[in-house]
């Protein structure tokens, strides 16, 4: 699975993207976030910061109960501030 990070989520994790193999029990975004948080303090601080992280699956906004598979492109980022 391809993971992309932007803005301060990227800064905290220390990566802009990575490719991971999902453990079998991870089938939703919510489970993905829990699993990522367990991978280290950098992930935990990026993901749990005030619950403000936004998620896109294959370049569309997605809710936390959305199912995911290994072929998806998942992005984690803060609320947007363009314009």
């Amino acid at each position, binding site marked *: 699975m391809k993971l*992309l990070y*932007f*803005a*301060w989520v990227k*800064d905290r994790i220390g990566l802009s993207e990575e490719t991971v193999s999902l453990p079998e029990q991870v089938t939703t975004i919510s489970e993905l976030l829990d699993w990522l948080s367990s991978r280290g303090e950098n992930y935990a601080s990026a993901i749990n910061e005030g619950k*403000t992280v936004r998620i*896109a699956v294959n*370049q*569309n*906004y997605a809710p936390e109960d959305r199912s995911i598979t290994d072929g998806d492109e998942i*992005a984690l*980022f*803060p*609320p*947007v*501030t*363009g*314009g």
Partner: protein
Amino acid sequence: MIRVQSEDFDFGAEIKALSRDNHQIGGLCSFVGLVRDIHPDAENQAMTLEHYPGMTEKMLEEIEQEAQTRWPLEASLIIHRFGRLEPGDQIVLVATASRHREAAFESCHFLMDWLKTKAPFWKLEEVDGKGEWVEARDSDDKATRKWQQ
């Protein structure tokens, strides 16, 4: 039409091209967002816009499509820049053209409000070498919600 680019754009030329040869257009509304000088005492300040290539274009196209569904538009244009910008630089251009002025005003306003909360851009403010990510504003969420009622 949507464009995501690091280069600057020529506002006048873009608007002229948008309405050229379409004599059904009675009103053309446009908005330009500019980088403000928010730290007048700083020696150096800049704004760097990060974005999510691919998703940005997809979202802008969806937003433009939504405006065309809601209002009878003759033409529309969104240009959003990314990269490093300085005070006075243009960030974004939104323009809509319609037969009547109300549709032009409303759809242009709608596009800006939606873009603000849906297009994946993030602003990094740099002041004298120190960078800070701009926080999202509640007022932007509210501005988007008013179009959902």
